[in-house]
């Protein structure tokens, strides 16, 4: 029997799209902060981990709130955290003379957040029992509940974000700030406030990713190390700074890594994503969708 005959392609497709959605959300979060501040936020993995710990460690396990309330409070907490980080760290960092120093600043911020998580919630991985851990059978195909929710929620988040940019004053201001901060300031836009709002939205997305990843990976300080790196790859492949590019890049990586290992040994799964990123950097450094210059 050929190995291809036994593969449940539908199941693989759903998994690939779900993982792709996670990468897309991470790439979108990268893009938001990059567009707003000009910085690549290397602390974003720790933002996701923090979101997961607040949700699973505090609201679910310690306080035993119902899922909906735990999710809501996590997102509110992450928004507040985003404003705090933007006003105390990212806004001052973006004004540094050398961008490299600012990026190192975000790396150090990441280590601090991870250590705070470790000290606050302990170093042992844990899980939220009964949260998105069921599976649904459709004929011979068994689909994980968590993957279905990931796809639905990702579509909702990305749609809402596009509507926000297109139809709200704050969203349009964020686009202006991402294109030209000086011109935006001359037009009367409060650039600092806009950046604070952007980082808050970005942190909320990190919170969502953390919540969605909790049933996938269990909650630990390195739960999304691999996914966060692939999210960065998705941004590069899609076109750094482009929102549609982030989505396309994420889905593409999800599809390539899931279907790719049917043809090659499984240990090469991560190498596929990273190899693809290097190929893009060499032959199309702007990514699939090149960002338009202001």
């Amino acid at each position: 029997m050929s190995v291809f005959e036994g593969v449940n392609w539908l199941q693989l497709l759903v998994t690939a799209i779900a993982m792709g959605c996670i990468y897309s959300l991470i790439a979108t979060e990268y893009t938001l902060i990059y567009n707003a501040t000009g910085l690549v936020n290397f602390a974003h993995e720790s933002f996701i981990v923090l979101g997961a710990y607040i949700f699973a460690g505090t609201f679910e396990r310690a306080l035993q709130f119902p899922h909906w309330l735990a999710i809501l409070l996590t997102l509110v907490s992450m928004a507040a955290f985003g404003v705090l980080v933007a006003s105390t760290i990212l806004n001052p960092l973006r004004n540094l003379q050398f961008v490299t120093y600012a990026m190192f600043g975000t790396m150090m911020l990441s280590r601090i957040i991870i250590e705070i998580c470790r000290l606050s919630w302990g170093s042992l991985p844990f899980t939220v029992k009964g949260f998105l851990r069921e599976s649904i059978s459709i004929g011979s195909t068994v689909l994980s509940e968590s993957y279905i929710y990931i796809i639905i929620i990702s579509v909702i988040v990305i749609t809402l974000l596009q509507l926000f940019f297109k139809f709200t004053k704050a969203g349009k201001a964020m686009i202006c700030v991402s294109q030209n901060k000086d011109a935006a300031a001359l037009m009367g836009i409060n650039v600092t406030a806009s950046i604070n709002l952007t980082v808050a939205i970005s942190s909320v997305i990190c919170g969502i990713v953390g919540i969605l990843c909790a049933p996938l990976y269990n909650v630990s300080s390195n739960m999304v190390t691999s996914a966060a790196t692939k999210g960065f790859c998705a941004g590069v492949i899609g076109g750094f700074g482009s929102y549609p590019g982030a989505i396309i890049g994420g889905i593409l990586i999800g599809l390539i890594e899931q279907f790719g290992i049917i043809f090659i040994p499984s240990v090469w799964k991560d190498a596929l994503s990273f190899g693809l990123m290097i190929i893009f950097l060499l032959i199309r450094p702007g990514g699939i969708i090149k960002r338009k210059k202001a």
Partner: protein
Amino acid sequence: MKKFLSVLLAVLMVFSLAACNQNNNGGGEGGEASTEGDPIVFGVTTTVTGDQAAGGEQAVNGATLAINEVNEAGGIKLNDGLYHKIVLKVEDDQGDKVLCDTTVRRLVEQEGAVVILGPYFSGQTIALDATMRELGVALINSATNVGIDDLQNPYLWHNRCDDGLNGVILGKAVVDAYVAKNGSTDGIKVGIICGNDDTGTGAATVYENYFKENGIDYYRDEHDTTVDDLTAYIQKAIAAGCNCWVSSCHDKGAVAIAKAMYEQGLRDQIVYMNPILAQTNVLEMMEPEWVEGWGCVADYSASDNSNPLSAEFTKKWKENYTVTPDVQGALYYCHAKLAVKAIEDAGSAEPQAIADAIAKISGYETLIGTVYADQYSNLIYQIGITYIRNLVPTMEASVSMVESQEDVKNVAKYH
């Protein structure tokens, strides 16, 4: 007057010196000589923090329990006629190979440890090869990689059935379970699904060799140990026609495999794993239906009352700790006991004497089995077959590959 005062002072000084001398002699002729010698230092290097911290906590608790027992009984009597209590020094190596070298050196060179218990991982143990030879101190741990034997290092001892023996035991168990279910080996295809690190690849090779030798059809694929989503990995194995499974991996890998198999509708499967499946922290991350009826080799089970030594250990543990005892706790309890046995046999706390004494231990009963030291590294050849019932590991059988010191050489080919 001056002359009188100086004579008085001189007399007082003489009396003071005499009194001091009496104190230093333990109270003089009428005093009792002390029977307590200098404490003996045991060093533990383990994962106090990091992903494997649960195992590290068990290790420290297990070693502490054994040492407390010895100290409460007065300590270890050495050839100097004195009783020496044991002091445990713990260092956190975070599961890291490089850091582990530093922690071991600190324990030996600064804390004066005469024996090292740990580290947690096989890779760390292998990386300590040159360091332990240089320090000349024996190391006892739960590492299972067969590569440790190849080092032929007289200071490295794993007080646990190694992957070579586990592989043979698990390979046989999976085939036996298939035959019991289907009547014969017709149609069998065993999926060897292991991590791509030292533990996984070493065990996968042992499984592969066993199935080759016994004419059993198999499929082998390894997964990246840092990857948590194994859907496509398991899909590939299903597509290859696997209908029973053996695995060796670490805790996150075990959870990821169980989750991926359940989510893809693989229920009522014949699955056997390395001892990681029986660890409390691993089972706590799973849902009961993911691993119901899965088997593994396990050195210890808290629910096993058939072994009196094991039952006694469980009772003592529960009197001292709130956390449930698991395999690592039991193993480190045994490692510490074994080190004590070696010191008692040697009558000395000199590191080289302890290392030599470990190599001579034969027929020493512990709760995980009877110890027979071979030429290099191996001490235990016995392990239990445990099944997971509603997330509780239940020991249902015990397999021993060695019944006497003579048998040790017969199993050498499996290491």
